[in-house]
């Protein structure tokens, strides 16, 4: 019987090696796999390359990992925010690298990684500092730059419900980057509010089919 459920979030993150690339879902506080991030903090992996739209707020989410120098690099669209002072300080100290990516390109590069598209031409960023070092080409009359796929060794996603196959549904705009990150993670860990019986999710409404999810953990809510 297929059963991707882990009883403990610590078990679900136990094998993450130093230097792994991890995709972290969430926009603001919506759809962030907070318990998985805390488990990763306890687990101790270092030199993580983090892929997350933002660097966490105050000491929450991946800000806690950054505070403890566990990320060597962050790929994100929105690093600079009053509440992102942890990242800003570490960045100014040269303790973390940054790859700054427009948000739509960020989402699309991750989807490309999940979909086996190695690179794509997009008009976003042409003529900006984002285009530096990238191939520029006019296609169909539109000037574009070439952007490459992003994949993760792991993806930490937050969903509302899962079944034991890993099928997921989300809550409102908590969806955000989670479905594309689930696609692009070699091992996708879904942290969910509820685990339901197989067949209970309406097949028409499943947003992330279980094929993209390897591990499921129910939130403890602690």
């Amino acid at each position, binding site marked *: 019987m297929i059963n991707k459920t882990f009883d403990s979030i610590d078990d679900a993150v136990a094998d993450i090696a130093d230097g792994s690339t991890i995709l972290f879902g969430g*926009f603001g506080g919506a759809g962030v796999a907070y318990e998985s991030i805390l488990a990763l903090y306890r687990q101790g992996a270092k030199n993580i390359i983090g892929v997350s739209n933002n660097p966490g707020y105050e000491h929450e989410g991946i800000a806690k990992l950054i505070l403890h120098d566990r990320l060597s690099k962050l790929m994100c*669209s929105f690093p600079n925010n009053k509440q992102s002072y942890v990242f800003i300080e570490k960045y100014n100290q040269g303790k973390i690298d940054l790859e700054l990516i427009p948000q739509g390109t960020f*989402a699309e590069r991750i989807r490309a990684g999940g979909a086996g598209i190695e690179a794509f031409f997009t008009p976003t960023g042409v003529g900006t500092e984002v285009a530096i070092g990238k191939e520029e080409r006019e296609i169909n009359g539109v000037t574009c730059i070439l952007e490459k796929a992003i994949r993760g060794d792991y993806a930490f996603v937050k969903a509302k419900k899962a079944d034991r196959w890993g099928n997921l549904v989300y809550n409102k705009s908590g969806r955000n980057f989670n*479905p594309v990150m689930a696609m692009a993670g070699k091992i996708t860990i879904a942290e969910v509010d509820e685990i339901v019986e197989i067949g209970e999710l309406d097949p028409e409404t499943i947003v992330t089919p279980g094929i993209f999810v390897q591990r499921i953990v129910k939130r403890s809510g602690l």
Partner: protein
Amino acid sequence: MEKRKLTREQIAQRIARDLQTGDIVNIGIGIPVLVSNYVASDAEIIYHSEQGVLGMGKKAKPGEEDPDLVNASKEPVTLVPGGSYSHSADSFAMARGKHIDVAILGGMQVSEKGDLANWKVKGVKLGSIGGAMDIAIGAKKIFIAMTHTSKSGEIKIVNQLDYPVTALHCVNRIYTDLAVIDVTRDGLILKEIAPGFTIEEVQEVTEPKLIKAEDLKVIEV
């Protein structure tokens, strides 16, 4: 006529007049967030929010907040009937794929050619792009809402950007406290002017040469 610069609210009010039922509109931070306050109550405008909300409604009332339903500034909001959710790649497909009718954005600088700078001030190391670049190249029309000059009097409508670029050739119309200006192939057309101001006075704080519209009028607010 008494000289009267538009307030931020009046700029928003003027922009609202250019929206019509059915428009799908992306709203940036700053003056743009005020626009929806001035849209006619019977107009059906659909607000797109980059994190995957189409049909964003008003801010959530106290006690009705859902941490998973927020606007681009992370504030709890609501969804209107007919609204829907998408993942981020599909949400930006809406922008990049030219499905959004209007994006109303703040501006730090706009050039004569419609180049836009609005994501990072000059000379600073760290800035946040967020969805700015995708939306600036994506929406069918880009409206910029900003004060005509900076607080220190720096000119913001310039021949060439010297702030970091958000997108090239993207701006269609600029709304300031002094004027409504269209960006066209022929140059910047001065369409409307704040009450009591002369063309010369607006030109003085605008670097590129303004072309007077045939039907130039005073901004009604």
